[in-house]
């Protein structure tokens, strides 16, 4: 018997602190820090001719004003290109402060440091920047400058299309949206002149990488820089982008001024100076037979990359490689062009190119069904990968540079479950009944496969203190996913200790220096497995030491509730905390417990007190580095009603079947799905970035950008299928992004079914739907 909390609906360890208002988010830190405001470009494309700070100089509390001319060394260079790729032939990144040119509204031009944010904004208001306004490029229809172009092809698509009995062409459009966490970005830095160390706090999804970037750009040794992600108020992708201009400027100013300096982004800044995603224009040609079997798929899409490409072309690569979803595509070609526009740059937002991929593939399958007059679920059934085809190699190169191979999943079972859950087969009757009452309802179905847990690696450290406390750390950070809980569940189960004894720290380079970050639904897969491996290493060591003390074989020992004991004779036992004492041979006793480990207390054996190859202390450290990504999958179904008068869309039911392998904590997984679905609904019906032709974002506030409230998100019904991944020790696959991926596809299908109007763009507002219907209900 062990303490098995893996798989249980355990309440979150994070919650009591957060519920008391004791969270420590970025702006809760640095009470006495100087604060920063930026003068940002009001133009989408302009030359900076002059900066005049004279009028700002007499603002009370002003400490410093910086422009690009003031930046030393590498801080004056363009910021890093994070993910180079051979196809990214014209990469471009911004300067920390604009040098000569600005390429989108919101780009930082001048940095102001003052006693507080009010005063910093006062001074920023008085800085006069003279611009020569240049013509902006806004929207894919006007974009011409190519950042990247990439083609991947499996099979002979041209031949397969030519030979196909039937072909169809589609044009699909997806608009911009953004992660929009409720806490924006923020960074707070302090230089410790005594220790000669820089500490940077950032509301980031990757503190280890921020640390290395800041050290490199400021010319400091890594060992003098530490980075901590405090409580992070949501990320959803945008905070994986780094280093932001603010992330290098604030630490630089803190060191230069010898003062604590803090920048907290406001909401408008988040809209115009962070990053967006989603916008694509897709052109599809598909060949299929009379039974609806797909023979060839040819997709060409344009990807709006905004003004810069700091995060490389990860998003369009993911769209390209996740587009096939659960389907067998005998021939598949995907070609994209990433285009520059004078808008906010594009980096991953939850789903990261997958919602666009699912929209493209699922709209295509629905069109095939419509063309042939076949049931949409049946067409899917005829095309999906069968369990016996696993592992299923797509023949494509995934976002990690490794082959995209589906490792596990039972797509036919998932399809049966979703059609049962939503009542698919019975729906025509319901639809007819509703129609008889003058109501228009429709049903939709959409599938996805999601590559999760991309490498290269994560690590974990587990340590038992002589008081029995178990400390766990991993380098990646948390933004609400409940890592302190799920990692504690893993360690409690692996070690056989009470969960209350386990304390998890994430995202603090002082505790764990090597990590990649929290994105791509990878934290549970990567850090979860690394921590499990570290716990197993610790357990083996504990059993070796306990076996010595108990004069037993390690194979005969078990750990139950923090006690190491001989199986079958529980009296022969030693607490794990005592094992921790014995693991660290001492000269000096400093407590009652530690006396047992001093030199005249321990039995003298042959060899040194710490055997070669061992280390003092009861600790384990290990890394998990997968050969390739693991692939989760799922299917969503929705029933909507469209108002005959107003074209308003109401979601009557929303069902999810989800397979992320073994569940660590079903409550948390369901929470992740709920949040993802809400963002899927948002992308389908509400959210868009409304740029005008001048590159001004017209809806850069929560008043105008329609983020759903409780009244807009439907009740979500969830069923889990658990097909464990064979790729990792815990058999888990990622769950973080899944909920959002098929949202636009499933709602488009349901609206189309309800109205009979082809839906080829997302989001679709009631007024657009009204227009699509020919202006009449």
């Amino acid at each position: 018997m062990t303490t098995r909390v893996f798989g249980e609906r355990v309440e979150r360890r994070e919650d009591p602190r957060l519920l008391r208002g004791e969270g420590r988010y970025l702006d809760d830190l640095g009470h006495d820090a100087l604060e920063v405001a930026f003068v940002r470009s009001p133009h989408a494309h302009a030359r900076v001719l002059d900066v005049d700070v004279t009028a700002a100089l007499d603002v009370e509390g002003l400490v410093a004003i910086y422009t690009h001319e003031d930046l030393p060394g590498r801080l004056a260079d363009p910021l890093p290109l994070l993910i180079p790729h051979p196809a990214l032939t014209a990469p471009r990144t911004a300067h920390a402060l604009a040098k000569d040119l600005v390429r989108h509204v919101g780009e930082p031009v001048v940095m102001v440091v003052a006693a507080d944010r009010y005063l910093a904004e006062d001074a920023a208001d008085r800085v006069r920047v003279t611009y020569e306004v240049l013509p902006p490029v806004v929207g894919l229809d006007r974009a011409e400058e190519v950042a990247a172009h990439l083609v991947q092809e499996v099979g002979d698509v041209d031949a397969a299309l030519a030979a196909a009995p039937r072909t169809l062409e589609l044009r699909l459009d997806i608009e911009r949206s953004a992660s929009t966490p409720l806490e924006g970005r923020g960074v707070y830095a302090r230089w410790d002149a005594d220790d000669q160390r820089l500490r940077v706090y950032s509301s980031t999804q990757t503190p280890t990488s921020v640390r290395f970037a800041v050290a490199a750009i400021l010319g400091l040794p890594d060992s003098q820089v530490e980075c901590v992600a405090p409580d992070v108020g949501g990320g959803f992708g945008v905070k994986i982008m780094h280093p932001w201009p603010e992330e290098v400027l604030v630490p630089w100013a803190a060191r230069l001024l010898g003062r604590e300096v803090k920048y907290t982004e406001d909401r408008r800044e988040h809209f115009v100076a962070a990053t967006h995603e989603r916008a694509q224009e897709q052109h599809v040609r598909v060949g299929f037979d009379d039974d609806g079997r797909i023979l060839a798929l040819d997709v060409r899409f344009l990807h709006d990359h905004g003004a810069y490409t700091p995060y490389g072309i990860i998003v369009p690569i993911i769209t390209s490689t996740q587009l096939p979803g659960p389907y067998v595509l005998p021939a598949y070609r995907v070609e994209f062009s990433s285009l520059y526009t004078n808008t906010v740059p594009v980096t991953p937002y939850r789903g990261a190119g997958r919602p666009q991929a699912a929209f493209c593939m699922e709209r295509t399958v629905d069109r095939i069904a419509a063309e042939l007059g076949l049931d949409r679920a049946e067409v899917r059934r005829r095309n999906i990968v069968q369990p016996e085809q696993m592992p299923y190699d797509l023949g494509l190169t995934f976002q990690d540079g490794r082959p995209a191979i589906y490792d596990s999943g039972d797509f036919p079972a998932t399809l049966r479950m979703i059609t049962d859950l939503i009542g698919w087969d019975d729906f025509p009757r319901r639809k007819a009944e509703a129609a008889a009452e003058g109501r228009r309802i429709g049903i939709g179905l959409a599938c996805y496969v999601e590559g999760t847990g991309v490498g290269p690696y994560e690590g974990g450290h587990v340590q038992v203190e002589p008081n029995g406390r178990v400390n766990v750390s991993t380098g990646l950070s948390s933004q609400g996913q409940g890592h302190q809980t799920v990692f504690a569940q893993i360690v409690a189960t692996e070690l056989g200790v009470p969960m209350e004894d386990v304390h998890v720290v994430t995202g603090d380079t002082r505790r764990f220096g090597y990590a990649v970050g929290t994105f791509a639904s990878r934290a549970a897969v990567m850090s979860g497995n690394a921590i499990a491996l570290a716990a197993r290493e610790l357990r083996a060591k504990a059993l070796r030491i306990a076996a010595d003390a108990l004069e037993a074989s390690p194979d005969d020992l078990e750990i139950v509730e923090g006690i190491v004991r001989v199986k079958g004779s529980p009296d022969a036992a030693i607490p794990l905390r005592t094992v921790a004492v014995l693991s660290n041979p001492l000269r000096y006793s400093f407590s009652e417990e530690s006396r047992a480990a001093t030199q005249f207390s321990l039995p003298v054996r042959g060899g040194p007190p710490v055997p070669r190859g061992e280390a003092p202390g009861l600790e384990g450290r290990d890394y998990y580095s997968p050969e390739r990504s693991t692939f989760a999958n799922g299917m969503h179904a929705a029933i909507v009603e469209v108002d005959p008068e107003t074209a308003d869309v109401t979601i009557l039911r929303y069902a999810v079947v989800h397979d992320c392998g073994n569940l660590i904590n079903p409550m948390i997984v369901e929470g992740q799905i709920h949040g993802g679905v809400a963002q899927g609904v948002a992308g389908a019906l509400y959210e868009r970035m409304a740029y005008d032709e001048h590159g001004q974002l017209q809806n850069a506030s929560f008043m105008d950008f329609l983020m759903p409230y409780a009244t807009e998100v439907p009740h979500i019904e969830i069923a889990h299928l658990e097909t464990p991944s064979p790729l990792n020790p815990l058999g888990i696959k990622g769950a973080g992004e899944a909920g959002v991926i098929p949202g636009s596809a499933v709602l488009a299908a349901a609206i189309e079914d309800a109205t009979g109007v082809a839906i080829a763009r997302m989001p679709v507002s009631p007024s657009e739907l009204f227009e699509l219907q020919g202006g009449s209900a």
Partner: protein
Amino acid sequence: MTEEQHHITLHVNGVPRTATVPARRLLSDALRHDLGLTGTHAGCEHGVCGCCTVLLDGEPVRSCLLLAVTAQGAAIRTVEGLAGPDGALHPIQRAFAECHGLQCGFCTPGFLMTTAGLLDRSPAPTDGEIEESMAGNLCRCTGYQNITTSVRRAAELLAAGQGGDPAGPWAGEDPQEPVAEAPLAAGPYAPPPGGGVPGEARR
């Protein structure tokens, strides 16, 4: 340029607190930065997201839409005032933990205070009332489903007498200085007409 400063007293969570602030200081900033009560969060600073919701004389308000000086003498309750004097979680807080009603936790103080206001007015709210009351607060993590479940659960816990009334440990006390009604329901601080601030405009 030296700004005129104002001395104000706010009765925060039952304790008179003083601060010296310029007239433009937002109540949210005064609570967070002058009084160090950082549990109240600022998510948009234009009155839409509800993260900064506090109870002002018992009513949920957006502290980012109020100037601190206009709250002079008012009784304010923040998330820090929910738990009991012994540190025990308030039933509303317990309900949110039980029902996984929070993820990143940034919007949570606003939801907790909105819930406190709701359950004080309406101890046994209907599902419709709950949804309507919560529909003035944004959450990007949870999809709201577990939040509305948490509110229902909080009503149950309170009805079962586990932890007193929603207005909390100090709620029985009268504000030490009566406060005019003007800053709240009407006047320059009222939500814009036409439902710009959904949760409040409907009240």
